[in-house]
């Protein structure tokens, strides 16, 4: 297995707050990596560092063994890493189809004809065909999350950083989302940030636990769930 993505001692500080501290991990091609941690532990910041939204204060981020540390987000996206956001950011005034088309046009730099075909393929994959003509700002949350995923997929990314794709969904919708993620897995390597434990523990092959910006545990879902430090971070000292 090759290291597809690697973080080496990455740190990010916001004023006095150390949001991510000396964080290292690597991602292997084809796996699903779960990233969990209590609220405010630095998960989203870490994603933003990888996607280029923030530049790390220290450390290096490598994609296919090349540094992407200081690249702007659109270059990182074109290189092959796409991120969905916790708070969905649809292009509200564009239709669902056009949202995905933009990602195909720019993310993969495809000519029109191929971009259209790619948008169709993704639209079918994330099961948004029926809603293609609707304005993205007017569809319900569950569909918006799928649209975020579709947009990320349409950029042709090899690594998808999925920030809480299941937040705010009903149990039935979570089930559908899990099935969708397993389909997506065939195309890309996934890192999931998720609060829905059942989902993240069920689907991830490996889990990282982050707390106060530091990595406190790493391993299979079962190993991590047993780890006293993890239990302490989530539930407090009494339960550890």
């Amino acid at each position, binding site marked *: 297995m090759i290291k597809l993505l690697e973080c080496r001692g990455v740190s990010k500080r916001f004023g006095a707050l150390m949001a991510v501290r000396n964080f290292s991990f690597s991602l292997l091609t084809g796996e699903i990596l779960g990233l969990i941690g209590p609220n405010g532990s630095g998960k989203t910041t870490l994603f933003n560092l990888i996607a280029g939204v923030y530049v790390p204060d220290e450390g290096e981020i490598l994609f296919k063994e090349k540094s992407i540390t200081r690249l702007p987000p*659109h270059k990182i996206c074109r290189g092959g890493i796409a991120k969905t956001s916790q708070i969905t*950011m*649809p*292009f509200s005034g564009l239709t669902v189809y056009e949202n995905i088309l933009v990602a195909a*046009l*720019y993310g993969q730099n495809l000519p029109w004809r191929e971009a259209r075909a790619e948008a169709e393929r993704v639209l079918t994959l994330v099961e948004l065909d029926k809603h293609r003509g609707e304005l993205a700002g007017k569809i319900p949350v569950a569909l918006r999350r799928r649209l975020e995923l579709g947009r990320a997929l349409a950029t042709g990314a090899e690594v998808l950083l999925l920030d809480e794709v299941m937040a705010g969904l009903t149990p039935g919708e979570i089930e559908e989302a899990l099935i969708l993620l397993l389909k997506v897995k065939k195309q890309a390597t996934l890192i999931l940030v998720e609060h829905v434990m059942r989902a993240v523990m069920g689907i991830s092959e490996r889990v990282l636990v982050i707390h106060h910006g530091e990595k406190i545990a790493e391993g299979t879902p079962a190993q991590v769930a047993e780890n006293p430090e993890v239990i302490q971070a989530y539930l407090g000292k009494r339960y550890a």
Partner: protein
Amino acid sequence: MIRRLYLLGILIIGLLIFLPLLGLEGYRLRLITLIFMWVALAGCWNLMSGFTGYIDFGPVAYFGVGAYCTSLLMIKLSLPFFLSVILAGVACAGLSIVIGLATLRLQGAYFAIATFAAAEALKQIILEGDRILGVDFFGGSHGLTLPPPPSGLFFYYAMFFFMGMVVSLNAIVPRTKFGYGLRAIREAELAAELSGVPTLRLKVRAYMMSSGLIGCLGGVEAYWLTYIIPDDVFNVMRTIQMVIMTLLGGMGTVFGPVIGASFLTLVAEFLGARFVYDYLIFVGIVIVVVILLRPQGILGKKV
């Protein structure tokens, strides 16, 4: 329906081309030329601000620079008019890259303030440049006088040409890849960047297109009026008119600026003829009424 609209469009274009041959002249010819200019200017503003959502509050900078470039090229180098106008447009596009790279990193009101400041600064440079450098170049507050212009008909067609170009761009751009990129920026800039859209580059490109064309229009107007002063060609009222005309007609639509500019120019003209001193009060009332009834503009889609 679409077919009929096309037909109507061709009919209007044909009518506008042949109108002067049917005996349109004098005041009416001038008025229609003026409408062409404002439609073109509002359309230029729409190309940038309507599509990207970045409210440019300093387009007049390029109008003024274009007017001065054209005038100086014609006076000092005796270049022909059309060449001067095109060179002025190129100069404005170049200048807009410099200003755009600096200001387009700002968002919301900050961008508006920065562009407004840039326009005022340029006006001061041209006003005071001569005195500070001790030369006689820009003519300071006395302005510049151009060579005698051809007939009004010449400007009718010149403005018509630029208006046609701007309106066509407004119609074509949103269907291109470039246009989709701009609309994505308008709707959610960070998401656009994360989807691979090179946001800064596209914004600068849109700004260049808009500014270059505004510069050309400034050049045409300078020759039309034959006399320019900084207080007129850099007048902030011109910026405000471009903004209001576009908002009135519908921002981000193809024909919004056309309707808004025609409407406002005509209203101001007719009311101005009847109520010489206080017509602006009535123009204000008209704008308020339109905004109350259709906040998204006359042609704008309801969101």
